[in-house]
């Protein structure tokens, strides 16, 4: 069992959404992506605290884009998953796969 940064469920979801969005990932798009993929819309507060925490853990980095009129002249804060973040996602995915291996769940073909 390798030691590393552990991920909470929602942190895992947020990292996957950022990875799916690529260079278009910022608060609004991340929230929309999570809502589209999970049918559950995260509260803005939960998302922003999670993004801050992920950045403190070194799992994502952020940078400012250009201000736009649509946002009242305020810039977007784009986010990107770091190498450590990708490693944490991979490790969590592997854990889930190990847990699922051999399970017979109704309606899930690969289990």
């Amino acid at each position: 069992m390798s030691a590393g940064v552990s991920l909470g469920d929602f942190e895992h979801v947020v990292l996957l959404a950022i990875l799916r969005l690529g260079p278009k990932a910022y608060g609004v798009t991340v929230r929309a992506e999570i809502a589209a993929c999970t049918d559950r819309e995260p509260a803005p507060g939960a998302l922003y605290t999670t993004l801050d925490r992920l950045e403190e853990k070194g799992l994502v980095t952020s940078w400012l884009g250009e201000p736009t009129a649509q946002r009242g002249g305020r810039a977007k804060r784009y986010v990107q998953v770091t190498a450590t973040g990708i490693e944490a996602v991979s490790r969590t995915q592997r854990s889930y796969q190990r847990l699922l291996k051999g399970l017979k769940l109704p309606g899930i073909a690969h289990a």
Partner: protein
Amino acid sequence: MPRVALAEWILSLTLAPDRATTTVGDLIEDASTRGVLWFWSSVLRTTLSHLLRDLGAYPLRIARLALWGLLMEGVLGILHILPVIAVWQWILDHWGPIVDNQTTEVPQWGASILSIVFGVVIIPFLVGWMVADRSGGRELAAAFALNVVGAAPHFLFIYLLSLQVHRPGNIYPTAENTLITLCVRPLFVTAGAVFFRNYGPKRLRVTEGN
């Protein structure tokens, strides 16, 4: 736009200014399809989320700080008697006849008012500032914890005071003043912490250790 500036100010109570700006930008963008009510509830919920995160991230540090603040409040509460006596004596010396001709009655209510001003406004503001200074960038969380920790001892103090002092003309231990103390004191503790966050010397945000 002033309303958006207010939203940014509210968020900046628990977020760094640049983060508050980008977060408000996101909420403005989302609010174009969701409406004003959603915008303001999101501003408040996001601020609350960050406050709870700050409280939960370093609970021992925040709890120790709140207890230290309570201790300081107690010390200042005792020490404030000296300036109250000095200020009231100065008022009596200079304006005594104007305030009240019956100077024997003046000190009782006058000193009570001064004591309330110190105890409910000035000391909580100073203690709010002091805990904010030691909070490692989590000013609002420190003030919140101090208010929670301080509520019970203050209520007990006022209750005991009301049992001891029933003299006519003494305005302190009444239900109204109990309510004022329990509501206004937290307000000025928070004001002291917010004032420090906006105008005090900038401190590095503590992100390790407890």
